[in-house]
């Protein structure tokens, strides 16, 4: 069974540019989460989709970040315009929609560097 995949693995952009990150969850997983790890800090929650609906976006830092999950399959996270402080590793995770299943399975991450 394929795991969570993310694209690109790395992205280097200049301040003010736009970047779009993509996440493909494990097939059949209705829960999809975005996280970010800034250097030296812990992994922090950004938002949560259940199928195509945003369940919780309390962790989104500001309105420069836009997440979508059209059709309830893959998700994209767009940063526009990017700022220096957006640099970090963006992880996606997924889990089945079963109340007893709380383990999340993570993708390899996208390493974003904003210059």
């Amino acid at each position: 069974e394929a795991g969570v995949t993310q694209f690109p693995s790395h992205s280097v952009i200049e301040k003010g540019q736009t970047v779009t990150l993509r996440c493909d969850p494990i097939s059949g997983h209705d829960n999809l989460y975005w996280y970010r790890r800034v250097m030296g800090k812990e992994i922090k929650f950004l938002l949560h989709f259940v199928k195509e609906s945003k369940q919780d976006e309390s962790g989104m830092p500001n309105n420069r970040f836009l997440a979508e999950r059209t059709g309830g399959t893959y998700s994209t996270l767009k940063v526009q315009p990017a700022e220096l402080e957006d640099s970090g590793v963006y992880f996606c995770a997924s889990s089945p929609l079963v109340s007893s299943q709380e383990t999340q399975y993570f993708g390899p991450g996208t390493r974003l560097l904003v210059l």
Partner: protein
Amino acid sequence: EDQVTQSPEALRLQEGESSSLNCSYTVSGLRGLFWYRQDPGKGPEFLFTLYSAGEEKEKERLKATLTKKESFLHITAPKPEDSATYLCAVLTGGSYIPTFGRGTSLIVHP
């Protein structure tokens, strides 16, 4: 606010030298505690979930234990391939969003 603290930040061991990693938490209503392993350039890989004080889980050279205030990840006779960052995360109350610690970076020398 929920807090998760992992110690030490970094640990160097010789192959075969057993040790323990600590994850202490200050939370209200612990519902579950997770241990993940993360290799360089990769995402966190799930290891264990613990739900109640006194619970223990094992996988190869790793054993995770849980008390009311902390969890330990015991590594018995580690090998170089056990080198990685080990992350702890907790679920509390009715939330499904884990709170992570900063991790312990483990290096095992041959």
